[in-house]
């Protein structure tokens, strides 16, 4: 039998080389559209959680606050949480109406739950949206439905927001999703992380 190891190695090398080159080309081509698409999706969420603002901008100062908070966030008692970004929400005249804070809890049922919260200057929550969530369909994924999401609008964000399992939620409480304890806790933790960050690192 002829030894084909050299030929085989060359063929496999060529296949991987061509595949690698193709991947490289596609990556180059799609890099910009992907960034634009993600930015657009994020902007849409920001507009949902802060309907009155027309522009969302971040600054080096806010980014520095985010970095500082992330060093300490694990000690806040909200589990594995991170602050992802903080943006100033401005109206057309350029006045700062409040902030949008993106935060993540890594302890959802299906991994990361990333939320975006809009908070005005009076610490009122204007809306809550999901940037990324991959919970169980029919249970945790119901968090994305308006029935759950919209209950946060108008809540008092000056302190902590806690979840309750039954009964009527007051200004600092929200109703957990039944059957989705992990998801509800993840939202609670991410939300409180965002609020704590805003009170202690941004508004001083």
């Amino acid at each position, binding site marked *: 039998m002829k030894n084909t190891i050299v030929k085989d190695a060359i063929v496999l090398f060529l296949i991987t080389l061509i595949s690698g080159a193709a991947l490289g080309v*596609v990556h180059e081509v799609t890099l910009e559209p992907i960034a634009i698409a993600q930015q657009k999706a994020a902007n849409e969420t920001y507009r949902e959680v802060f309907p009155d603002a027309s522009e969302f901008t971040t600054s080096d100062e806010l980014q520095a606050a985010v970095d500082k908070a992330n060093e300490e966030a694990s000690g806040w008692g909200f589990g594995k949480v991170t602050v992802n970004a903080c943006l100033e929400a401005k109206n057309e005249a350029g006045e700062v109406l409040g902030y949008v804070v993106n935060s993540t809890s890594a302890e959802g049922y299906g991994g990361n739950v990333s939320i975006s919260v809009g908070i005005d200057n009076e610490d009122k929550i204007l809306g809550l949206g999901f940037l990324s969530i991959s919970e169980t369909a029919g*249970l945790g994924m119901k968090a994305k439905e308006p029935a759950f999401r919209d209950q946060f609008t108008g809540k008092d964000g000056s302190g902590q927001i806690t979840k309750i399992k039954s009964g009527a939620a007051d200004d600092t409480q929200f109703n957990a999703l039944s059957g989705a304890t992990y998801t509800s806790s993840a939202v609670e933790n991410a939300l409180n992380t965002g609020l704590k960050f805003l009170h202690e690192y941004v508004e001083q």
Partner: protein
Amino acid sequence: MNKYTERIYNGIWKENPLFVLVLGTCPTLAVTTSAMNGAGMGLSTTAVLIFSNLIIALMRHIIPDKLRLPAEIVIVASLVTIVDMLMAGFTPALYESLGIYIPLIVVNCIILGRAESFAMKNGPIISLFDGLGMGLGFTVALVLIGAVRELIGAGQIFGFQIMPSFYTPCSIFIMAPGAFLVFACITALQNKLKMPCATNGEGLAKEDSCTGNCMTCSMAHGKKD
């Protein structure tokens, strides 16, 4: 029926990848929590399967026999990544609903199974139709399981309320155990009715790619999830 439409019929009914060949059960158990999820996974797999079958059939004379598996997995993994990036960049709305399934396709044994048992031995066009048929068969199977689970577990199908309001959804069906329950019931039914199935000993004819006897199957190594 010409040989191309025969491949589609074959994939959907005669050799349905999930119910008859029992391939791709991992993604099946994981994503059939609702009919919509099943459809998403099925259609993404179909797209990849069509192209992987086509490319591998075109290259079947170049790929050395000993290196079939590494060559195939490189091609499939590259293809899946390319599809993933193209979708993320150019069809963000579609990507948002299907994106989470795309990376799962790399490890879907249907892709490798069809590459091994069909595309390596047949021409590109018929392989393309084989991929289409198998993909559609997988989609039908996933939607079916997803619909049953969604109906019992959430009272809905494709997000529309089907069950009357007094019905209390049995949540276990949309959680992991529900996948096993539904899949097992379908397999039991196939066995009872003596329908062809790889798990049903005498079910498959000899000329099929899988005879259900994994111990003596030359391709068993390529058929694991």
